[in-house]
C-alpha cells in the first residue's frame, strides 16, 4: 500500500480550498414545495469536509443527510446558500459544467445500482475516465484492483458478483480518477456486516493510505465508527459533531434523537429519505 500512498499526485488535498476543506456548504437551505406544503429539507447548514479525512453524516430518517450529500456533490441544487468543491462554487455551474466536475473531481458510491450492467468490472472501474476520454493511469488502476481484491473478476459482469463485490467495484470506480472527494451514500446499506466491514475498511484505507477525502452518509453507528469524524443532522439542521467516534458513542447520540422524536418532533424532510 505504500506504493499507493507514495503515488498520490494530482488533485488531492492540496488542491482544496484555503480553509483545508475538500467540500463545504455554507448556509445551505433546500426547500421542497411551496406555501403551506413547503418542507425544509436543509435549514441553514454550514459544514466543511476536511481534505484527507473520512467524515460520516448521520441522522435519523428524514433528517436531510442525503439531501446534504446530494447538494454538496452537485447532484442537486440548493434553494439558498452555497456549496463548494475546493474553490469552485457549484451554484454558478450549468448542467454540463457540473457533470464534468462530477466526473473529474468527485467519486460516487451509492447504496445500490452502482454499476452499469452491460459493462464488465474493469470497464465499470474506468467508466468516469472513459466518459471523459481520459487515459486511465494503468499502474494506479492496477493497484486499486488489488486493493479491492477483484483481480480475478475483471471480465465479469456486475450480475455475476455478490453485493459486497459490487460495492467494492464501486469504491474502485470512485477512486479511479483520483478525485478530490468521494461521496458515499449508505454504501453498506444493502450488505451483511462482514461485506459491509470490508467496504468500510476500503474507504478508510482510501483516506489514510491514499490521502483521499471521503464523505459518507449512513444511519448505521457501526459504519460511522470507521470515520474520523461524524456530523449529526436532525430536521435539516446540523446539531452535533463528534471526533474519533466509536459505535457506542454514536449510538448513544442517536438514541437522543429518537427520544426527541417521541417528544413530538416529527421527522421532517419528506422525499429526502435515503
Amino acid at each position, binding site marked *: 500500500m505504500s506504493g499507493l500512498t507514495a503515488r498520490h499526485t494530482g488533485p488531492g488535498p492540496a488542491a482544496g480550498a484555503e480553509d483545508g476543506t475538500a467540500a463545504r456548504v455554507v448556509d445551505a437551505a433546500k426547500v421542497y414545495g411551496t406555501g403551506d406544503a413547503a418542507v425544509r429539507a436543509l435549514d441553514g447548514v454550514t459544514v466543511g469536509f476536511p481534505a484527507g479525512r473520512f467524515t460520516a453524516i448521520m441522522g435519523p430518517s428524514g433528517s436531510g443527510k442525503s439531501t446534504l450529500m446530494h447538494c454538496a456533490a452537485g447532484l442537486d441544487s440548493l434553494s439558498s446558500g452555497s456549496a463548494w468543491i475546493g474553490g469552485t462554487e457549484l451554484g454558478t455551474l450549468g448542467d454540463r459544467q457540473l457533470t464534468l466536475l462530477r466526473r473529474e473531481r468527485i467519486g460516487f458510491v451509492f447504496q445500490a*445500482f452502482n454499476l452499469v450492467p452491460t*459493462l464488465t468490472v474493469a470497464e465499470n472501474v474506468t467508466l468516469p475516465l472513459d466518459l471523459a476520454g481520459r487515459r486511465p493511469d494503468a499502474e494506479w488502476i492496477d493497484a486499486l484492483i488489488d486493493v479491492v481484491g477483484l483481480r480475478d473478476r475483471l471480465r465479469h459482469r456486475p450480475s455475476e458478483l455478490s453485493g459486497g463485490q459490487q460495492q467494492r467495484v464501486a469504491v474502485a470506480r470512485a477512486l479511479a480518477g483520483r478525485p478530490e472527494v468521494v461521496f458515499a451514500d449508505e454504501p453498506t446499506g444493502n450488505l451483511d456486516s462482514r461485506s459491509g466491514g470490508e467496504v468500510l475498511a476500503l474507504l478508510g484505507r482510501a483516506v489514510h493510505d491514499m490521502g483521499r477525502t471521503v464523505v459518507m452518509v449512513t444511519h448505521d453507528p457501526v459504519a460511522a465508527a470507521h470515520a474520523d469524524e461524524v456530523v449529526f443532522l436532525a430536521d435539516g439542521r446540523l446539531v452535533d459533531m463528534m471526533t474519533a467516534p466509536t459505535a457506542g458513542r454514536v449510538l448513544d447520540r442517536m438514541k437522543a434523537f429518537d427520544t426527541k422524536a417521541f417528544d413530538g418532533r416529527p421527522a421532517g424532510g419528506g422525499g429526502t429519505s435515503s
Partner: protein
Amino acid sequence: MNSPTRAGGTPAGSRSASTGAGRASLRIGLAGLRAHKRRFAGTFVAVFLGVAFLAGTMVMGDTLRASFGKLFADANSGTDTVVRGADEVTASGPGPGPGQGTREPVPTGLVDAIRKVPGVAAVAPVIEGAGELVKADGKSLDTRGPTVAGNWIDEPGLNPYKLVEGHAPKAPGEIVVNRDAARRGGLEIGDRTLLRTPDPVHVTVVGVATFGNEDGEGQTTYAGMTRADAERYLMPKPGEATTIKVRAGPGISQQQLTERVAKVLPAHYEAITGTQASDETQESTSGAFLDIFTTLLTVFAGIALLVATFSIHNTFAIVVAQRTRENALLRALGATRRQVLGSTMAEAAAVAVLATAAGLLGGIGIAAGLQALFPAVGFPFPKGALQIHVLALAVPLAVGLLVCLGSAASPAVRAGRTAPVAALRESATDTSGGSRRRAAIGLCTAVAGVAMTVGGAAAGPNLPLTALGAVLTLAAFVVLGPVASSVAVRVLGAPVGRLRGVTGSLARRNALRSPKRTAATATALMIGVAVVSVFTVLGASMKATLNQTVDRSFAGDVAISAQVYGAGGAGLSPQLATTVAELPEVQDSVGLGVGVAEVDGAGRRLTVTDPAALSRLLDLGKVQGSLAHLGTTQIAVAKDEADKRGLAAGSRVPLTFADGTRVDFTVGAVYDQAGLAGNYLISRAAWEPHRVQDKDTLVAIDFRDGVSTAQGKAAVTEAVTAFGSPDVQTKSEYATSSAAGIDTFLTLIYALLALAVLIALLGIANTLTLAVHERTRELGLLRAVGQTRGQLRAMVRWESVVVAAFGTAGGLGLGTFLGWALVKATDGSGTGAFAVPPLPLAVVLLVGVAAGMLAGWRPARRAARLDILRAIATE
C-alpha cells in the same frame, strides 16, 4: 386491489363472481392504460395509420367507382342500343399495342335499315379512333389517358359530349375538343393546330365540349370532327363506322329496342343495350385501372399493418415484462391467471377500439382530402359525394381490432403465467436470445424456404413455388431474428463502438441486452426495407432488360418512339418512316406498326412493317428462311414462339383477323432474337386489307456513312416537325425513355412504402422509450458519475441506429434475394436481365440508418431530461 382479491378467492362458476372478476380485470387494465398513456402512444399511432390508410383506400375506391359509374351512366343515358362487330380479337402476351380487343367496323349502310325498325327515335354512326392533339407550342399534348378522335354526333342524346362553347364542326378541318384538353393544350376557339391520326391533319378548333358535366372523360383527350373527316382519317375506308348508336322512342325499353335492332343485323354484327355498353366502357377506361390502383393500395396497407403487428406485439411484450412484479403481486394477492390475462387484454382492447375508431375517421378524412387533391395534381377525377359503404368501415375495423388484439395475445398469456413469487424477485428483462430450438426451427425453415425459392426461380421457372419459398424465407428471417441479432448487432455496432468510444460501446451493448426485443423491433423495419429492396431490384432488372433488348436488338443510329402510356397516344404516322427515308443523310428508315390477329386460335400481336428493311435496322439474330420476300402470303416468327407453337420455316399457319376473315399464311422465316421486333412479322401489304387505323410505335433510322449522329439527328428532327415534333432519340436515349415508366412506378411504390417504414420507425422509437424508462436508475447512475446530457443522447441515438442498421441490412439482404427470385421466376424465356443497383440500395441503407437516428431523437431527448436524483431514487 380489493375486488380482484375477493373475486379470485371465489370458486369459479359463480356468475356474479365471474362478472365481478371480469370487471376487476377491466378496471385494472384501464388503470394501467391511464397510468402509462405514453407507452401506448406508439401502438395507437401504428394502428391508427394502418387502419386510416386501409379505410381511406376503400372509401376512395368506392367513391371513385361510384363517381365514374354515374359519369358514364349520365353521359350515355340517351343511348339505348349499340350495334358493333361481333368478333373480337384480343392480343395477349407482352408487347406494345392495344390492350382492349379489336373489332371489325360496322358498315354505315346499316343505319338506314335500323332507322326503319319500329320504336327507333334516332340513329347515328359513331366513328372512334386515335387522334393526338398537338398543343399550341407544337408538341403533342401529354396525357396519361387515351387520345380519342371521332365524328361529332348531332343527334340529341347520342353524344356523351355536350357543346359548351363555339359550334359543332361543319366544314372539313373543324374540330371540337373537350375542355380539359383545350386548357392543357393551350387551345382556344379559332386556333389552328395539328391532330395526329397519326398522319398529321391540319385542324381548327371551333368548339369546346364537356363529357357529361365533367371537363373530360377521365384523362382522355377528345377531338370531334365532321363525319366525312372522321371516315377519311380514322377508318380504313369510307362507309364504315366503329359502332352505331340507337335511341328508343317513348315507351320502348332498352331491351325491347335491342332485340328488335338485332333482328335486322347481318351475321358478324351484334346489338347490345346502352347500359351494357356504358358498363363495358367504364370497365375498360376506368374500372380496370381503379381495380389495379385500389388493389395496389390495399396491398401496401396490408404491408403497413403487418409491420404494425410487429411493433404492437413488441410494445405489449415489453410492457408485460416491465410489469412482472406488479402482475406477480396481483397473483400473490389472489388474482387468477385469467384475471391478469384479462387485464392486459382489456388494455389492448381499449387501445384497439380507440385507435381503430380514430383510424376510420382518419381514413374518411384521407379519402376526402385525396378527392380534393387529385384535381389539383392533374388527375381530373369526377366529382361526387363521398361513398362510405359498410364494407369500407367493417373491414378496416375488423383488421384493426384483430391486429391489435392478436399482437397483444401472446404477451397477455405470458402475463397470466406470471408466478406469484416473481413479486419477490428482482425484475429483470428477458436477456435470452435464440434457444437451440428456435435456431433449429429457423434454420430448417430457412433452408426449405431458400431451396424452394431458388428451385422455383432457377429450374422452372415456377412462380407459385418461388412465392411459397419467399413466404417461408420471410418467416425464417422472423424466427431467426433473435438468434441473429446478437451477432448482427456486434458486427454492425463495432464501428460505432470504435468511433464513439464508451458512448458507442454502451449503445451497442444496450442493443445487445435483449436480443428478442431488438430482433422484434428490427423485424418491423426489415419487412418494410425488404419490400423496398424487392421493388428496387425489380425496377433495375426491368430497366436492364429493356436496355439489353435495345442494345442487342437496335442496329440503327436514332429512333423515334410513340408515347408509351397505356392505350394512349395515336402512335406515329406510317408516313413518317417514308418521309425520313427520303432525307439525303438517311440510309434506311423503317416503321414498326402494331396489328392483332388470332394465330391458331390465340390472340397475338403482329409487327406490321417492311420485313426486309427491318432486318437491316434491327438485329434479328440468325434467320432461317428469307425475310426479303414475305409478300402477302408469308409471315416471320421468332424462334422461341415458333418452338412453343411447333412452327418452322415452311409451316402453314392460319390467321384470323378482327374483320372475321381467315387467311392461311406460310412461315417464311424464323428469326432468333425477338427483342424490339416482337414475335410475329407481317408485311404492310399483307396487313392492309385488315387494318383499321394504322400507326407505328417505333421508327428506326440508320444514317449514311459519313453522316455524324448530330448531323443526322438534326436533319430528322427538322423533317418530323410536320408530324407533331416527336423526339428523335439516340439508342441510349431511346432505352432511357422506354424505362421512364418504371421510374414513375417505383416512385409511387416508394411513396406507398413510406408508411410502413414510418410505422417501423415509430416501433423503434417506442421500444427505446420503454427501454429508457426501464433503465432509469442506470441512466441516473451514468449521469451521476459524469455522463453529459450530450453523451446520454448520443448513447440512445446510436442504439437506435444500430437497431435500424440491423433491420435495414436484413431487409436489404432479404429483399435483394427475393428480388432476384422474382425476376428469375417471372422470366419465362430466360432472356431477362438481373441487376442489383448499388446506388439506390446504398441510398436505402443510408436512409434506414438516418431514419434510425431520427427515431432515437425523442427517446434520447426524454432520457437526457431525466432528473438525476429521481433516477437514482426510482424503485
